[in-house]
């Protein structure tokens, strides 16, 4: 499974990659904001997108809306990893096209559970 990880924080990208590596995954692409994330879509098959919400240039919500309008991104599972955890936030993210949601701080078990959930929907 190949992941696209979109987060402006190199620290959070590293944490997510470390966690995914511990879970047995090996293939990752990285992007520093939503615009870069859209550019990375042309780099080959992406099986699952993990994106932050609050990012400069293009935030995670706008990224997912744009992603859903592309042929490659229409059906790719999207997991949002963010500190925005209020009910209104979750509703907005789901409306934009996010499949599932992980609230920071998170454990490896939580990330695994959510990945399995969105992958099984694909």
């Amino acid at each position, binding site marked *: 499974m190949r992941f696209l990880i979109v987060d402006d924080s190199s620290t959070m990208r590293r*944490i997510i990659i470390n966690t995914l590596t511990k879970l047995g995954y090996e293939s990752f692409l990285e992007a520093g904001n939503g615009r870069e994330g859209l550019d990375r879509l042309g780099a080959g098959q992406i099986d699952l997108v993990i994106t932050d919400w609050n990012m400069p240039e293009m935030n995670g919500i706008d990224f997912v809306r744009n992603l859903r309008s592309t042929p490659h991104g229409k059906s790719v599972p999207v997991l949002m990893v963010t*500190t925005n955890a209020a009910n209104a936030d979750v509703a907005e993210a789901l409306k934009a096209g996010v499949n599932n949601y992980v609230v*920071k701080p998170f454990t490896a078990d939580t990330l695994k559970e959510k990945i399995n959930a969105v992958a099984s929907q694909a």
Partner: protein
Amino acid sequence: MIPATASLVDVLVGATTDVFETMIFRQLQARETTWGHAARPKSQMVGSVGFAGSSTGLVAFHLSTAAAREITTAMLGIEIDEEGLADAVGEVTNMIAGAFRTRMAAFQDAWAISVPTVTVGSDFYIKPISTGDRVIVGFTMDAHELFVELIITPDAEAAV
């Protein structure tokens, strides 16, 4: 409705210890709480995240460079350069502020929060320009002292 001030500190301490236990794999011991504008925590790096909504203000995370290195190594499993250190402090601050915001959303409308900024230096302090409350909570992580600062104005008045 915003909780009483003592509860506000409990919420802040809970958010901070949760981030450290879950993402950094370190236990924090909460120490003294200082109210008002006289406190000047000693630190070399300060991460800050602003918030706005039914309350406005700022969450700031103060620590030494040595503490930042230890936190980053614990969190990432590797040692990183100066730029990476600032990014890591920003992300920890973002998670503390985000966890605080999430807990506070149980009492009132959810706030919007800013992306984090990190200031590196030692001879400065954050001066609010409003009449909002200011509290600094001290923590220890092994031999390191850490401080989490909250400036909050429970209305639409600008806090910083």
